[in-house]
């Protein structure tokens, strides 16, 4: 009962906040709504017994990625947008229609998911220790590859933003 109340409240707030990202004409406000949505996602992870991922979500998204977004927004001298949304009434209608149809398809497809048996095999406990064990044994190659990718991305981002004098170019 309490879990249901918490879940429905959380989903309501997350839906409203992500709609705020969509509809607010001010990018800074969009970023703030996004932070709150990320905190909501972290709480959902917590409800699903993934406490470590909830912490990582808070640190990586609410901490790092959103700060990056806000810094870039502040770097630009952004006025309130004249055109928030893409133009064309028919095009807009088509886009919203596509979104609604996609949502209906997704929700319909959930009922094709076979019923999961309660606690299929309780031998694997959902602990952070097991997560780390899996990450550093079975997935170690992918993990190292990811480190390489992040290095490449860091170099690429610096190279991209330093073309012709960086952000202070005339």
């Amino acid at each position: 009962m309490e879990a249901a109340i918490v879940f429905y409240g959380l989903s309501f707030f997350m839906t409203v906040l992500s709609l705020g990202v969509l509809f607010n004409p001010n990018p800074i406000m969009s970023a703030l709504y996004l932070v709150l949505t990320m905190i909501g996602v972290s709480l959902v992870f917590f409800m699903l017994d993934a406490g470590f991922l909830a912490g990582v979500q808070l640190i990586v998204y609410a901490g790092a990625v959103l700060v990056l977004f806000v810094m870039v927004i502040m770097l630009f001298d952004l006025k309130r947008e004249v055109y928030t949304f893409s133009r064309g009434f028919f095009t807009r209608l088509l886009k919203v229609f596509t979104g609604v149809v996609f949502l209906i398809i997704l929700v319909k497809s959930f009922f094709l998911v076979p019923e999961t048996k309660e606690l299929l095999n309780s031998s694997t406990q959902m602990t952070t220790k097991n997560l780390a064990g899996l990450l550093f044994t079975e997935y170690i190659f992918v993990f190292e590859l990811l480190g390489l990718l992040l290095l490449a991305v860091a170099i690429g981002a610096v190279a991209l933003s330093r073309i012709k004098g960086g952000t202070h170019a005339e």
Partner: protein
Amino acid sequence: MLSSELLHIGLNHYLGLSAVIFVIGMLTVLLRRNLIVMLMGVELMLNAVNITFVAFSSFNQNMNGQVMVFFVMAIAAAEAAVGLALAVTIFKHYKEIDISAFEQLKS
């Protein structure tokens, strides 16, 4: 019967929440003109997928889904960094970050 179905939070509830957030993120990418807000929409979509991963992982008692969430998070951070660097490049040329300026990216 219906009320007990609604009050017992199962896998489908989490999947529904994730679907709603995914579609809102998709509409953000489709409808907005500001490049940075479009990147925020991509982040919303990636987070919706993460909720799906963790929900399946939790209800199947299978740890592999949570490892995937790690990878998705790393890719999302990388994508945000590159996207924002591109936004800076666009802004230097055109003094605006409207998505329509992107069609002239090749200077």
